[in-house]
């Protein structure tokens, strides 16, 4: 186990170096001097999609966000999501991926995922596809592979329904699957967990939108044996980006 971890760390380093190198290559190649401002400047974006407190006994704090920097075609993405209570971190899922636009609406991604809960952590190699499906469903599917032979699939989709130009209702659905049990991380094989949400936000400006909502989460199979969840919670939160 230890050797795997060390190996992972080493490969993580190599991977990061490679990504940075490729990005710098892209920077230098795409520099062009012409009439208009460079059409493809180096940009970044930080989006905190969910930053909320649940109305349960633990007053669970939930976050989910992403950050990218890069160009039209090539970007480096960080995804992070998790839950914490007054006692500290419950669980988190974090990803660092190189993302490349491969189709008009779709990005292919490759990188590493790092899961952590109060007692354990796990690093995965990851490939994912992210983009906008027909009918404007914001979608992401990630395939995770760990040295212990466990393979995970995490799928999430989100839709934005405009009630007015500024009042936006967002249903979302997320499901996780695994091929093996991992007692420490409290994940079981098969369908592990499902979470559905409905959030209503008001965009005072595009970048700043408080919201209210409700989520329903449930664990299944062996995950349920480790950590039985079947609960519905109301929530308040803030969505912001810059």
């Amino acid at each position, binding site marked *: 186990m230890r050797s795997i971890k060390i190996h992972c760390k080493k490969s993580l380093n190599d991977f990061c170096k490679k990504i940075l190198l490729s990005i710098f290559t892209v920077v230098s190649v*795409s520099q*062009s*001097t*012409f*009439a*208009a*401002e*460079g*059409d*493809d*400047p180096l*940009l970044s*974006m930080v989006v905190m999609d969910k930053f909320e407190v649940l109305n349960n006994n633990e007053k669970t704090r939930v976050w989910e966000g992403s950050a990218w920097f890069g160009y*039209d*075609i090539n970007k480096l993405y960080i995804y992070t999501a998790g839950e914490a209570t007054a006692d500290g971190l419950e669980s988190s899922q974090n990803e660092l991926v190189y993302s490349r*636009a*491969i*189709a*008009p*609406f779709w990005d292919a991604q490759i990188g590493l995922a790092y899961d952590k809960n109060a007692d354990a952590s796990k690093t995965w190699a990851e490939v994912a596809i992210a983009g*906008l499906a*027909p*009918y*404007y469903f914001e979608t992401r599917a990630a395939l995770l592979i760990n040295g212990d032979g466990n393979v995970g699939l995490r799928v999430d989709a989100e839709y934005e*329904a*405009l*009630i*007015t*130009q*500024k009042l936006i209702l967002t249903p979302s659905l997320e499901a996780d699957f695994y091929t093996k049990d991992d007692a420490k991380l409290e994940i079981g094989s098969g369908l592990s967990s499902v979470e559905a949400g409905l959030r209503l936000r008001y965009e005072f400006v*595009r970048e700043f939108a408080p919201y209210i909502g409700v989520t329903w989460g449930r664990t299944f199979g062996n995950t349920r044996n480790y950590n039985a969840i079947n609960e519905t919670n109301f929530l308040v939160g803030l969505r912001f*980006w810059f």
Partner: protein
Amino acid sequence: MQRRTFVKGLAASSLLALGTTTVAQARSRTMPISNKDTLTGKEFFLTIDYTTVNITGDTAVATTVNGQISGPTLVWQEGDTVTLHVTNKLKKSSSIHWHGIILPPAMDGVPGISFNGIPSGETFTYRFKVRQHGTYWYHSHSGFQEQTGVYGAIVIKPKRKEPFRYNKDYVVQLSDWSDEKPTTIYKKLKQMSDYYNFSQRTIGTFIDEVKEKGFSKAFNDRKMWNQMRMNDGDISDITGYTYTHLMNGQNPSTQFKALFKKGQKIRLRLVNSAAMTFFDVRIPGLKMTVVAADGNHIKPVKVDELRIGVAETYDVIVQPKRNKAYAIFAQSIERSGYAMGSLTPSSTLLARPPKMDPIPKLTMVDMGMDMGAMGKKGGTGMKCSSGMAMPSKKSMKKYKWAAMDAQKYPITKLPMARGVQTTMMAMSPKYRLDDPGVGLRHNGRKVLTYADLKNRYSTKRDRKPDREIVLHLTGNMERYMWSINGIKYADSKPLQFHYGERLRITFINDTMMNHPMHLHGMWSDLETGDDNRLVRKHTVIVQPGSKISYRVTVDAKGSWAYHCHLLYHMGGMFRKVVVS
């Protein structure tokens, strides 16, 4: 948006009343031909510098020519050799491009193509012979400086008497201004391409649609757009949310004023110097007689309204019959704001703005779909059942443009890519010269279309084209990327034009936006239905989902720019043309 514009304007005018001198308001451009904002002669001194302005009620730093927005109107005489000393006091490289002027390539002012730009602190001297007359304009071709104020009008007096008469002559220069930095705007568009669009479909508008055309039709309609991940409210990338629309540098509250005496004929030289805004211009109560397009005389045509694309110019003559103030009303194509001035017998008498037209929606015609096949079930080539709002009976009628379609010239194939750069392809693009365009169809007014444009002089003797090239205007609205033939400028090879040839260029617009395409150095002789009356233009609007053709006499050796004139599209939707 309307209210916001008003409030902003109000703030600005109260500042004016307090005596605060700001660039935008300190000037009145009632008499451009004799005004100090007008420079006349053979030698000109222009300085590009930073200027603090107050256009919206807040101060902002503009880049200006001789300290003013718009820059001074330059009056030249056809046949003269003009000398223009342009000093750049910005911290960055700058340039001036003389838009629509036929001149040697080294004088064209496009950094990286004509010359290296004017470095900070230096002066560049342009000198060329003026071989044309009419209404043109100039602007910076560096970075986003055009958005922040580096533009002005050019009036070239003709050698020979013009074939129409007028008593007064005014430049009406339209533009758009934002207190936001252009780089910030561009960043926001890349982060979220519909950032400035607040006229999207909502549940509320869906209910209205259901009331209007029934549930299944409304549902199918929306289903189709959503399935394609396209937004039928996507008319302009940047709107009145951030823009204040200007007329000769005045906002709708401070108002540009053009004075007249009852019965006089007034020539208005309309110039669209906006970075991104198409304007629909009318003067309620008056017919406008259009006498020139892009500086060139056309057969006069009387209209109530005209759409002026970015970088186009039109000369119109109006004759007010009553002693009242008329609104020169230029609403933005997506109806989020307007520029406005008064045509008035007295500078204290101002016109009231008319109501803006409803917010337009794109139709399947604007997607370049075959409306003939739409009727037949499943014959669309797109995965959609039916139920789209039919555009109009007029455009359903047999196109009289079959003759233009039938023209066959040897086609030179160009590299083409269909990848990340393109989200849409016009399945069945049509010549739509008699289509006034989205938002102007069947509005009860006589609206100018390209089909109305006929050269004042015969073009019978013009050569027939030797060959043809086809350029697809492509883009990915979701990622805010723009290109030609699916290849952006940075990845493209120059287009090769052969010196001495007559070239036909056909554009196919594979996007949902109007693109004003501007060829430098040579005229674009637009086919508008009569080969004997090809109209000379420098900038040609290619409507969404449509095609359009023009002919170019390749008579200017050297390197030239060829691009979409929407400033935030230009980086990608651009080609270098090499004539050899």
